């Protein structure tokens, strides 16, 4: 018995020791980052693995922020080669990268994603403006009759959509949305909530004088029962909408695309614009107000060290993948315009360094 136990312990220790030495080289691309870009990145990775002689890249879904943190943690095979992001890299992140020796980064914009506001099919139609969304979901809103500003804010009293705007149906506000860790939430706060907030002149004035409290007031989402954080899983939101017909969900366009038979998306209007339904066309030409760009970033120091990065970039920026009728469009990615595609394809080919201006 004892011998067996010791043998097992020794075998375990040997396993331990041997694995350390194997960590040095890597022949497989490693990608981390946004869960929104994950379905697209994995589709390209799989196609790349199938059609080339390189191994299929490993794609992890860590969220945009988490991905950039890993990406910027250093150079070497223990660090990822590419990170996906559902927002642009921040200045602070570029600085963090530089601190750790990651100085040459290639940025590739891959397309757009619309954030849709949808309900079960049986729900009555609503046409929303960004202002409606702000008044329904912000933590604090300007007191009635005022145009906002620091002194005029009250805790959001609105319980029904009709409270927000008399033209909307008299149904309780129950919104299922992503948690604060999600890139979708960041984008929604910035594009929809802040977009609606800006329509108040008092808030606009505040932006110039005190941008700190402007940001806090214009991006804060209410924390009572009207806004429910439904987790990162968009499928779960879709299922909950089908179970609760009063609820309204916030999620990515690809999930609407897959569930168009069960869900109804509400048209959204920017200030002074016509309401736009979140269709493929409206998102790609920018008419739909809540859409954002998707990116990935490549560590230049790893190109030619980890085999296949150049070829992977070529596969991703091929029109067969990200073009108007490419396989990524089938999966719900909204392609860039022809000119932008040409620009980023050329940059990816030449490995042009990122410049934030």
């Amino acid at each position, binding site marked *: 018995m004892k011998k067996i136990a*010791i043998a097992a312990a020794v075998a375990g220790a040997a396993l331990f020791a041997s694995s350390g030495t194997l960590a040095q080289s890597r022949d497989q691309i490693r990608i981390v980052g946004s869960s929104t870009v994950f379905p697209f990145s994995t589709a390209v990775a799989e196609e790349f693995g199938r059609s080339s002689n390189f191994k299929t890249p490993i794609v992890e879904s860590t969220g945009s922020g988490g991905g950039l943190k890993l990406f910027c943690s250093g150079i070497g095979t223990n660090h990822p080669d590419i990170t996906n992001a559902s927002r642009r890299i921040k200045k602070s992140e570029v600085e963090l990268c530089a601190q750790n020796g990651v100085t040459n980064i290639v940025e590739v914009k891959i397309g757009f994603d619309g954030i849709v506001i949808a309900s079960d099919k049986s729900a009555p139609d609503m046409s929303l403006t960004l202002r409606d969304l702000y008044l329904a979901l912000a933590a604090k809103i300007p007191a009635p009759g005022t145009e906002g500003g620091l002194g005029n804010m009250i805790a959001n009293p609105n319980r029904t959509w009709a409270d927000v705007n008399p033209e909307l149906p008299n149904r309780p506000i129950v919104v299922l949305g992503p948690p604060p860790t999600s890139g979708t939430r960041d984008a929604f706060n910035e594009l929809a909530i802040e977009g609606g907030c800006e329509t108040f002149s008092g808030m606009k004035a505040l932006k110039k004088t005190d941008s700190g409290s402007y940001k806090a007031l214009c991006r804060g989402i209410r924390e009572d029962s009207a806004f429910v954080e439904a987790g990162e899983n968009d499928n779960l939101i879709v299922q909950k909408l089908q179970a609760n017909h009063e609820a309204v969900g916030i999620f990515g366009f690809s999930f609407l695309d897959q569930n168009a038979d069960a869900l109804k998306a509400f048209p959204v209007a920017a200030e002074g614009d016509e309401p736009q339904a979140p269709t493929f066309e409206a998102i790609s030409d920018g008419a739909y107000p809540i859409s954002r760009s998707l990116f990935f970033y490549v560590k230049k120091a790893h190109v030619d060290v980890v085999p296949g990065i150049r070829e992977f970039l070529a596969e991703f920026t091929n029109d067969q993948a990200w073009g108007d009728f490419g396989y990524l469009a089938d999966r719900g990615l909204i392609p860039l315009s022809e000119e932008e595609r040409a620009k980023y394809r050329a940059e990816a080919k030449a490995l042009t360094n990122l410049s934030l201006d």
Partner: protein
Amino acid sequence: MSNTKEFKPTDWGSPEMQARTRRRYRRDRNFKAMGVSAVLLAALFLFLLIGKIARDGAMGFLQTSIDIDVTFSEEILGDPRAMSAEAFEDHVRQANMIRLLDEALTTEFPEVTSRRDRRSLIRMISGGAREQLRTMVLETPAIVGSTRTVRLLAADDIDQLRKGKIDAAEEEANRKVKDKELAWYRKLDEEGRVSLNFHTRFFTSGDSRDPELAGIWGATMGSALTLVVTLFIAFPVGVLTAIYLEEFAPQNRLTDIIEININNLAAVPSIVFGLLGLAVFLGVMHLPRSAPVVGGLTLALMTLPTIIISARASIKAVPPSIRDAARGLGASPMQVVFHHVVPLAMPGILTGTIIGMAQALGETAPLLMIGMVAFIVDIPGGFTDAATALPVQIFLWADSPERAFVEKTSAAILVLLTFLIAMNGLAIWLRQKFERQW
């Protein structure tokens, strides 16, 4: 006899006493009824849960195929008789299998001529068809020049249509399968070319973004490799700790502290072990990310307390008389432990270990931190290859937008449940077979 008979307080015939007895029986009955309803309620929930998963999952084991007459034309594939085997293989690898498919579908649907329609026609067949055709040609080069009926996997939308998950009565704009495709599908169906078969690929392939190509073999291998590492670390360390603490360690403050810590560790949320794994195995030791060896080590830390606690309990359950008898016959402390106590405690130790392993098999949270929650297509072949695990695969599929992944998720849950039931069954069997009553 008078009806106002005098009763003593302890007399069973007295009305008070009878009322008391009745009350006691009633309480008994109520308690039993509550117990039974609690069990029934639990059983009902379990039944609903498993029933729903089984209903969804059953379809996940089936897959729609379409029989297509493919002409393996020499023009596209090259002539195997005219060139060397290697040259032919190269040629086939370069060849555009889509053209083969395009020609086959054009023969089937001569009326479809526009480029766009032909593309949608090809999209009814899974993207895996290229690989399937290529493998066929490489295996039997003689096939070139002939026409064969090949059973190709249908794309996920067509599969969902066949399974009734896409409603053909729905408005076209809201339907994934458009009217044209529906007409083509119906034509194929009338010709008897569409069939629903058992999907072996689900058990033999790795992950894929196409539901019809996705399989659980990669995740199963990842889980197996991870558990091997876990077992190799956790079992010896856990058992030796338990033996030492139970049989040799002096009772003092230090051992008390160790004991409290072990019991505490058993209740620590598993994500904490993931953070520990990230900091130590990846941060300090620089082991590869996403590797089963790291997952195994992390899960070993998580399972250790379970194994130690159950091993200690079963060692404690060996009666002291066994130890006394062995000592009386002149056995050394070591001999007492390894010749007598441990063999008798083994069934209990193994049961605890298996339950600990089953727990490790179902764990995702610690793996998230060390990069095992990832899209990995290749089947892992060693302890340092990137891998996922079964529960992680379920998590990833549950989060995929494609509708067909819903049934794949349920099917994978059924597979995981089968493994768990098998492991727990083994634990029960071991206990029944080897346990001794004192």
